[in-house]
């Protein structure tokens, strides 16, 4: 363990003389820096998307799962009676913390987006709404519907399942899409760095044959390339990450009403997530370069 840690420290500290044996190549250096910076920038956005959709899915799931609505549509003379009967049924149902009839003002507010502020709620045959809040494991929706159908014929229970499920599923898929984007970004970066490393190895075939002539092990030769590409990826990705975070900061503030697009960003400790992007990019670059170097050196034997 101590030896492994020593090897890692030696690798990071590097060997200035060994690093010099491979001449710097401008084209591959620029390609690696640029691709790492671009991919890190995109990775920050994909992360922001994943985390935002994750929050959204949780919020929708939690908020909607704990509440239900009972709608009572009854003839004018029976409305009060059926509402009282419904409240009695709800109060005696296990798993229900509270049930309250929405005030006329609240119902007017719900309809305001469609009918404007001056809707005469009293003169319209609008159903009465009862908000039901669950507790513990919740209630048995099928059993409650059965009881309501017998005691309150005008009542329709909406436990939000019908429209909550697709919303949560959509949010979950968006979250999955975000993680998939991250994987694709990592794969693309690995491919670009492999291309750059292959180009650098091919351009330095003469250097490699000289190093082998003087007794260099393949691991020594590979390390010279690995260090170079890993450090370039780390530097490029750090730059891209900073730019990405700046761009996320520049997005509009989250809408208190819960608008999705305006909530795209990081919150609280989630701002630490982008810090992982440069080291992950460096690891991807290291593995890609090692694979490319191993293949090339084997082919040159």
């Amino acid at each position, binding site marked *: 363990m101590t030896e492994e840690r020593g090897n890692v420290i030696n690798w990071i500290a590097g060997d200035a003389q060994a690093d*010099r044996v491979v001449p710097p190549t401008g084209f591959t250096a620029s390609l690696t820096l640029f691709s790492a910076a671009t991919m890190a920038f995109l990775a920050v956005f994909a992360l922001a998307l994943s985390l935002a959709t994750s929050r959204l899915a949780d919020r929708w799931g939690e908020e909607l799962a704990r509440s239900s609505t009972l709608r009572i549509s009854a003839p004018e003379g029976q409305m009060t009676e059926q509402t009282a009967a419904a409240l009695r049924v709800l109060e005696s149902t296990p798993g229900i913390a509270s049930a309250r009839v929405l005030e006329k003002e609240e119902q007017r507010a719900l309809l305001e987006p469609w009918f404007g502020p001056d809707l005469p709620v009293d003169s319209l045959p609008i159903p009465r709404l009862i908000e039901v809040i669950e507790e513990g494991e919740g209630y048995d929706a099928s059993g409650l519907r059965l009881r309501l159908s017998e005691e309150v014929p005008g009542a329709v229970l909406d436990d939000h399942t019908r429209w909550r499920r697709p919303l949560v599923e959509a949010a979950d898929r968006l979250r999955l899409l975000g993680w998939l984007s991250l994987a694709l970004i990592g794969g693309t970066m690995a491919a670009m760095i492999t291309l750059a490393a292959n180009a650098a190895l091919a351009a330095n075939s003469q250097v490699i044959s*000289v190093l082998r*002539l*003087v007794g260099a092990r393949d691991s020594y030769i590979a390390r010279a390339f690995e260090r170079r590409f890993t450090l370039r990826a780390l530097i490029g990705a750090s730059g891209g990450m900073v730019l990405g975070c700046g761009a996320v900061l520049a997005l509009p503030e989250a809408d208190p009403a819960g608008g999705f697009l305006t909530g795209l960003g990081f919150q609280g400790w989630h701002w630490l997530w982008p810090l992982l992007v440069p080291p992950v990019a460096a690891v991807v670059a290291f593995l890609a370069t090692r694979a490319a170097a191993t293949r090339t050196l084997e082919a040159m034997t």
Partner: protein
Amino acid sequence: MIELEDVAYSYGGGELLSEISLKLQPGSFHFLTGPSGAGKTTLLKLCYGALVPTAGTLRLFDVDLRTLDRDGIALARRRIGVVHQDCQFLDHLPVADNIALPLTVSGRDTLDEVANLRELVGWVGLKDRADALPPELSGGERQRAALARAVIMSPDVILADEPTGNVDWDMSQRLMRLLIELNRMGKTVMIATHDLALIRAAKSHVQTRVLRISNRRLQLAGADL
């Protein structure tokens, strides 16, 4: 040290070397001669593990080459100094760094070794050219730098491929004197050359064995050499 037993090497469908048997004893001095294209360079490459025989057995320091992995070959090469015909250098590094390259790759670039490096650069007469880049050197200077690089690890064997190919007579004599001096230090030397005058001149200073490649086979050269 290096032993070939019935070695053959084929390339592109044709056999380049056949039934080669050779044993490089410690402290011996060999010349390898033959017409251009006879396979001198190929034989040298076989001797330092750059090529693998297609038949026969080749032992580097008592180990069968076929049993060595790439790391094993790299370690064996640290005991063999090679002077190439075209003096391969890293053109972006100064001459001194190129000479020190075997130390660098083997992790032996310590202060003591650096002191040895200065001495060695002086020994091959390149003290004033240590900071120059390889493309700035003349043919003779490149050959001397290549020789210095070949011996910096104090190898057991020195293999030189046409080391005097690109230099004038005086410089070739100077290089030969350096190689003879190394042989007197106990190093095994094998030089591939088609320069018979060089071989004759060297024979008056060192006991040599002259080998000739003819018709893909290795034979002892005649009394004329």
